[in-house]
């Protein structure tokens, strides 16, 4: 009789572990998808910024600042990525600090499309980052669970890290997009 109970307990534990592993797997998949989406948005933003910097619409000083930071953001290694992307945000804010810059780009041929793309990119980056960090937080909660640690359910997957950066969009561009 005792043996039977032990067997039942073992089976229940097995089912629970398998369910938790499934849950963790789903969370990792969600996190990977969110990371890919964030990567895509960051790259899109850097590309539009770089296009704009090389277009000759902006004054030479602004072009150089923007080109430098967009280039650095695209080339950054994983460890420097957050800093480089934050610097791109700061450069964009500095370049578009005055609404005149937006008007100047608007008037250039193909300008409205570029402003539209850049406006979309600077608004989507913070969204993608929130979705990503939300996924990271959810995964961390489960990863810290005793059962997950004792039975090593996470395998060799690295501990999930949030992506921290300054993603405040330039006010002139954010307002332009909502019009």
């Amino acid at each position: 009789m005792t043996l039977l109970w032990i067997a039942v307990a073992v089976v229940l534990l097995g089912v629970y572990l398998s369910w938790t592993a499934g849950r963790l797997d789903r969370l990792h998949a969600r996190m990977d998808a969110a990371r890919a989406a964030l990567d895509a948005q960051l790259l899109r933003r850097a590309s539009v910024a770089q296009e704009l910097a090389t277009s000759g619409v902006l004054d030479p000083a602004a072009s150089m600042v923007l080109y430098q930071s967009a280039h650095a953001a695209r080339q950054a290694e994983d460890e420097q990525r957050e800093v480089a992307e934050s610097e791109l945000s700061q450069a964009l804010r500095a370049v578009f600090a005055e609404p005149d810059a937006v008007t100047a780009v608007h008037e250039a041929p193909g300008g409205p499309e570029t402003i539209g793309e850049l406006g979309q990119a600077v608004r989507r980056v913070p969204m993608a980052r929130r979705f990503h960090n939300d996924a990271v937080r959810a995964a961390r909660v489960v990863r810290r669970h005793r059962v997950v640690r004792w039975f090593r359910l996470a395998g060799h997957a690295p501990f999930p890290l949030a992506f921290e950066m300054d993603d405040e969009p330039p006010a002139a561009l954010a307002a332009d997009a909502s019009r």
Partner: protein
Amino acid sequence: MRIGIVCPYSWDVPGGVQFHIRDLAEHLIRRGHEVSVLAPADDDTPLPDYVVSAGRAVPVPYNGSVARLNFGFLSAARVRRWLHDGRFDVIHIHEPASPSLGLLSCWAAQGPIVATFHTSNPRSRAMIAAYPILQPALEKISARIAVSEYARRTLVEHLGGDAVVIPNGVDVDFFARAEPRPEWRGTDEAPTIGFIGRIDEPRKGLPVVMRALPGILAKRPGTRLLVAGRGDEEEAVEALPAALRGQVEFLGMVSDEDKARLLRSVDLYLAPNTGGESFGIILVEAMSAGAPVLASDLDAFRQVLDGGAAGELFPVEDAEALADAALRLLADPDRRAALSTTGSRHVRRFDWSCVGAEILSVYEMVTDGAGSVATDERTGLRARLGLARD
């Protein structure tokens, strides 16, 4: 894109969430997307062709009031069938934390899930007790949307994690183009003040107006208060001296067209709510119609009114302050015109063309590279033990 939207509350009962979902669905359909809405409804209510009934909602006491909710095996089975038949690219669940269709769909689905949190409910005991069950369902949501910064804050405090803020949408031009009705328009001697909301719901704030009204009428005896909304009219004016009761006109429940025309006609719109608001769509509608707004200083209202730039604020439940502010505004046509202009410009960001695009960009972000939504098949015991054959 194939989009499935889950509405937690009965389709046949009017409410903010239901209207939001109706407008969102119609906006998305106009933009060429395929949309299906799953909503609780009696089987014999006529539904628009994009709505699928999830069965009748059952009234049960929940969280201090009687809520109409869907739960149980029958509803869960309907959710599964809808998910299976719809083959959606993304599903958008509204109010996923309330024990109704939203939670059921969250539980039954896998794949790209977007969720919108509308209310800022205080954390309930049921939620704390159900947390271990709730969490595995809620953690499937890939993107959370809160309707205001205030709603986002409560969400972060109660459930952890984060959300992006996308406000509720309004068809601004519908209100901006409405024809004013002469009998609702005021003159300098007899201005009109508008109020829209449930009369018998104290949180909508009509009692505060009733306390302020004698003060307003003492200075401007001709002022008329136009009240649109459901409730007991006798009871509402009880606090008012009998001689003044004639200055309050009850219009009862009004249609959307009349609501827009009322907002276009009045000299001042009052929103004296005392709490329980997470967004304040009525303020957006009033601003769309160009009505100068005087609202209580709730977090949600302050945010919609751009910190007080697009409308005036008075301390919550302070009838005296309300009377003072209303008199000041009624005496100052220039200030009212300025508020109306600022409001009309500010309100563009709440138009469906903006809000719809934001919501779509969230859909795009979660569907990029992801498979479509499927039912989350509960793995059988045999499969878990590795005995099942593929």
